[in-house]
């Protein structure tokens, strides 16, 4: 058995963690206007 050390090469690029959310582009565009309105009308919590 060799030594207990394991060398791990660190990635030079940041790892992309995809938000685990399923959303189609058409839904994104459909919701965009509603999202902007929600922020405007509830500015105290945004």
């Amino acid at each position, binding site marked *: 058995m060799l030594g207990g050390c394991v060398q791990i090469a660190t990635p030079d690029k940041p790892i992309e*963690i995809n938000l685990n959310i399923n959303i189609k582009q058409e839904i994104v565009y459909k919701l965009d206007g509603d999202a902007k309105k929600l922020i405007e009308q509830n500015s105290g919590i945004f």
Partner: protein
Amino acid sequence: MVKQWKPAGWAMAAIAATAAIGMVVPSAMAQRDPAYEAARSAGQIGEEPTGYLGFVSTPTPAVRQLVTDINIKRKAAYTSGAPQGSTVEQFAFVTGCNLIAKTKPGEKYKAPDGRWLTRDASPPVRDTRCP
């Protein structure tokens, strides 16, 4: 003879004062709590791509409470506001895209790779699905 009603001076002043207050403070929801604003600009908390606030550093109990409160209210707003055909999560996500876009220079936001970044003059790094 019909007597014309003339508002007394004090009545006019009261009406004017009420109108002025109405303009300055439209509703309790319309303004950020100063403590919330302070935590944002100090970079203690930031916007996450999920549409919720997150802690950049270990918060004080007061900041933790404040963020928990706001996130509960956000969740309620996403839940009641999500249009038909979309989920609460999806609506929160698209709102998060907008909230990150709206961050001011110096404020923190979470990039898609999970790092907290400080907003500067350039556009923020957002999820590729953001509008």
